[in-house]
C-alpha cells in the first residue's frame, strides 16, 4: 500500500499549504513562455506539458536579483542588504531534470564562499517532483545517467496514476514528509499502480564524450569551429539551462542611490571575458561554445564530481538555429 494524492483533492491541499504559510508554486502556462509560478487554485497548474519552457533555477537564481541598496551622502555610504524573499514555498510538479539541476548547482554556490541568496531559497523550498510519463525528442536525461523519475534534488517524488486522477507519493526527505503531513487528511492508502515512466532513449555515449573532452589535444580540434558555425550567440541555451549559473554584477541607479544587482550573464557573449586591454581569451563563438561544453562535462565535474547538465534538452529545444548539447555530444560520440 502506498499513499495517494487524488487530483480532485489538490485544491484542498493547496488551501491547506497556503494556510500553513507556504506559497504554492508549479508549472503554469505563463504569458509568453511557460514556467514555474505561484498558483492559488489547482486549475492554475498545467501538468500536461513535457516540461515548462523556463527552468526551475530562476526561482532560486532569478534573472535579476537586487543584492544591495546604496545611498551616498557626503562622506557616508549606507548600504542595506536585500535578502532572498522570505517565506517557505512548495514547488509542486517540478520535473526531475529541473530538480536535479538545483542539486547540481549547490556545490558551486557553496564552495568556500556561500551565496546566501541561493541557499536561503533552497532551505525554504520543498521540491515535489512528478515523474515524467511523456517526453519529446529533445529529452535526454537518460543520456546523462539520470531518469524521468530521478530523485536527485527532490523532497517528494510523485508518480502519476491512470487517467491523471492523482499521484502515488514517495517521500524522500524530512522536509518533504513535513510538507505532506500538512495535507495528510487528504491522502488515501491505495494499491493502485503508477503509470510507467516514459522511456527516454539514450542519445549519446556520455563516457565516450567525456573521455574525448578530457584529452588536451581535442581542445584545439577543428570540431569546435564546425559544430558552432551556426551559433548566433543569443544565449537562449544558457538562460534556459537549469544549471547554467554565470552572472554579472551591475549597479542600477546614480551616484547618490541605487541598487546593486546580480544578473544572468552568458558565456555565449563576446563581452563576457573581454579584458580592458581589448584582449579576449574567448574571442570567437567557437571558443565560447567549447567553453560551455567543456565547463559542463569536463571542468565542472572535475571540481564537483557531477556533470553540469541534467538532460532537460531545453538548449536544443529552444535554440533558434537547431544546435545544442545533444547535437554536440552526438557528434563527439562519432569522433
Amino acid at each position, binding site marked *: 500500500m502506498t499513499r495517494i494524492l487524488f487530483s480532485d483533492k489538490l485544491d484542498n491541499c493547496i488551501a491547506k499549504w497556503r494556510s500553513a504559510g507556504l506559497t504554492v508554486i508549479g508549472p503554469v502556462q505563463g504569458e509568453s513562455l511557460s514556467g514555474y509560478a505561484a498558483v492559488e487554485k489547482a486549475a492554475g497548474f498545467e501538468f500536461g506539458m513535457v516540461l515548462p519552457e523556463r527552468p526551475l533555477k530562476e526561482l532560486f537564481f*532569478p534573472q535579476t536579483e*537586487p*543584492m*544591495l*541598496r*546604496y545611498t*551616498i551622502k557626503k*562622506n*557616508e*555610504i549606507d*548600504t*542595506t*542588504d*536585500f*535578502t532572498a*524573499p*522570505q517565506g517557505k514555498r512548495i514547488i509542486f510538479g517540478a520535473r526531475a531534470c529541473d530538480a536535479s539541476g538545483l542539486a547540481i548547482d549547490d556545490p*558551486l*554556490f557553496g*564552495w*568556500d*564562499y*556561500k*551565496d*546566501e541568496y541561493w541557499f536561503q531559497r533552497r532551505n525554504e523550498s520543498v521540491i515535489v517532483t512528478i515523474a515524467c510519463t511523456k517526453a519529446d525528442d529533445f529529452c535526454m536525461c537518460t543520456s546523462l545517467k539520470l531518469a524521468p523519475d530521478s530523485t536527485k534534488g527532490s523532497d517528494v517524488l510523485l508518480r502519476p496514476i491512470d487517467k491523471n486522477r492523482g499521484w502515488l507519493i514517495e517521500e524522500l526527505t524530512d522536509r518533504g514528509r513535513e510538507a505532506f503531513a500538512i495535507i495528510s487528511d487528504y491522502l488515501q492508502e491505495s494499491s493502485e499502480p503508477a503509470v510507467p515512466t516514459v522511456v527516454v532513449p539514450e542519445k549519446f555515449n556520455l563516457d565516450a564524450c567525456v573521455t574525448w573532452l578530457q584529452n*588536451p589535444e581535442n*581542445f*584545439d580540434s577543428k570540431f569546435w569551429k564546425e559544430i558552432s558555425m551556426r551559433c548566433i550567440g543569443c544565449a537562449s541555451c544558457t538562460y534556459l539551462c537549469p544549471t547554467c*549559473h*554565470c*552572472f*554579472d*554584477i*551591475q*549597479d542600477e*541607479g546614480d*551616484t*547618490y542611490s*541605487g541598487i*546593486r544587482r*546580480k544578473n544572468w*550573464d552568458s*558565456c555565449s557573449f563576446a563581452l*563576457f*571575458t*573581454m*579584458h*580592458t*586591454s581589448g*584582449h579576449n*581569451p*574567448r574571442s570567437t563563438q567557437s*571558443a565560447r561554445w567549447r*567553453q560551455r561544453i*567543456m*565547463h559542463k562535462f*569536463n*571542468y565542472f565535474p*572535475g*571540481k564537483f564530481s557531477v556533470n553540469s547538465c541534467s538532460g532537460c534538452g531545453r538548449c536544443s529545444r529552444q535554440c533558434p538555429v537547431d544546435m545544442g548539447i545533444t547535437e554536440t555530444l552526438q557528434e563527439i560520440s562519432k569522433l
Partner: protein
Amino acid sequence: MTENIQSTQQNIYKPAIMKIVGRHDEAPGVRTMRLEFQDPADHEQFKKTFRTGMFGLYGVYGEGESTFCVASPETRKEYIECTFRQSGRVTSALANADIGDLVTFRGPYGNRFPIEEFHGKNLLFISGGIALPPTRSVIWSCLDQREKFGKVTIVYGARTVADLVYKHELDEWQERADVELVLTVDPGGESPDWKHRVGFVPTVLEEAAPSPDNCIAVICGPPIMIKFTLISLKKLGFDEKNVYTTLENRMKCGVGKCGRCNVGSVYVCKEGPVFTAAEVSRMPAADL
C-alpha cells in the same frame, strides 16, 4: 518582484567601505590610490587574510567594480594601495574620486606568492608597463625583510619613459646597494636624458643574464612580453617551476561563481591568480 529588505546578513558580495587617503599619478592615465578601511572589523579581516599576490574588486557605487591586484605589500597592512589605468566606467569613477572620498573594496581573494619558500634564494623580478603593481607588492614584501633573501634583481621596462610607473620607487631601488635595477624602454620610447637601457624586456634580460642558480623569477606583463620572456628565461637555464607569474582575467564575483575567469579548467580567482610557469604551460594556450 517582492524585495524584502533585511538587516545585515552574511553577504559575500558586499564590499568594505574605503576612504581614499592618498593619490599619486604614475604615468599618463595611470594612478595609484591609497585606501583605508572605515570599519575596523573589515580591516582586521584584511590583516588576517592578505598575502602578497592576492587581488580585490575595487568599486564605486553606481558604477560597479573592477578587479586589480593589491599593489601594496603584505608587510604593510595598514592600508591598501591599488594602481590602475583609467580606461572604463569604474576606473574613470575611481580616477575622479578625491582624497577623502569613499570607494569600495571586496577581497582579498585568490592565492599568493609563497614567499617563505623564497627564503635564502636570489630573486629576479621582471615586469612590463602597468604590470609592475603586482610585482611591486612582492618586491616590497621581500625588501621589507631583506635579510631573508639573497640577491635581488629587478628588470622593468615600459614603452616610453613616461609610461614607467612608480618612478619615485624606481629611484629608491636604484639607490639601494642591495637591489640591482635594470630599467629599459622600447626603442623610440627614450627621452633625450634617458640614461638606462633601450630595448625590449626579453632582450635586456638576456643581456643582463642573471644566473638561474638558486633563483626564483617573478614575471608580470602583457601576454606578449610574458611569452617572449619565458623563452628568454628558458635560454638562461631557469626551470619553469621556479618562475612565477600572475594572471589577470575579467572577473565579476571573485569567488568562483560568476563563471568567466577560468583558463581551461583552472579558475583564476580561486586557484590563482599566482601560478608557476609550469602550471601555465599546462593550461590550454588558446584559452589564455
